[in-house]
């Protein structure tokens, strides 16, 4: 894997989108699973920075993680 491919994989794992299985359990990102442990640490730091950027740019200071959870709660109703 070259540096660009690795960066793209890390970026995919940074997303707040996560698949769920038939029982509703949230599943790890396939991109995250393909990464080496040191790259997973990089995903963590980038997710943290990215959620701050999302909060800063959102009028209600909600990150995409918060909105993902809200969407999940509304689906259950």
């Amino acid at each position, binding site marked *: 894997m070259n540096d*660009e491919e690795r*960066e*793209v994989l890390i*970026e*995919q*794992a940074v*997303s*707040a*989108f*996560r698949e769920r299985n038939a029982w509703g359990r*949230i*599943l*790890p*990102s396939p991109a*995250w*699973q393909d990464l080496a*442990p*040191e790259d*997973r*640490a990089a*995903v*963590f*730091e*980038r*997710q*943290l*920075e*990215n*959620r*701050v*950027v*999302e*909060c*800063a*740019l*959102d009028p*209600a*200071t*909600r*990150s*995409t*993680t*918060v*909105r*993902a*959870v*809200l*969407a*999940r*709660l*509304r689906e259950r109703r």
Partner: protein
Amino acid sequence: MADAVPADLLDDTFRLARSGDEEAFARWMARVEIPLRKSLRAFARAVDVEVVVQETFARMWLAAVDSARIFEGNHASLRFAFRVARNVALEEMRRYGRGGLIDPEQLDGLPEGRVEAEWPDPALRRAIADCFERLPGPLQRALQARVREGWRPDRELAESVRMKLNTFLQNIVRGRRLMATCLERRGVRLSEILS
């Protein structure tokens, strides 16, 4: 660094959520998310922390609307959320057999729950917004799609901005690099603020 948020503000927000108010719960999550994430750094190599944070919030909602559950003391909801997150992280680690990727001694020193009074700091918000506005068109469009609707699959977001998936992701990578450079010029290093 801002002062810690008054306990009654966070607790009042959680109390409103307990009546089934999803908007109040969203405000509570927005306050708690960053410190909660930071508390999970020790697990980053072993579990997908995004899964842990989302599952923790889903369980906190169930606990919030359970009238039999009692939350007592300052920041009780925050302290409870930190415990839930740690348990979810351990469950994920066991599920995928990744215990060897974490030093058990690290787990003894996990940080206690604390949230900031005003987050993000207004000056930081302005700097981020200014740098975002300066991004070249395609990079800004890709990053904006992620920032606004990043809980949706990347394939859908790429289609919404008429980009191929790989181009979309590469634009986000480039956009982030430019944002980081722009913020550094203003004396802002997110990695240091969040360490």
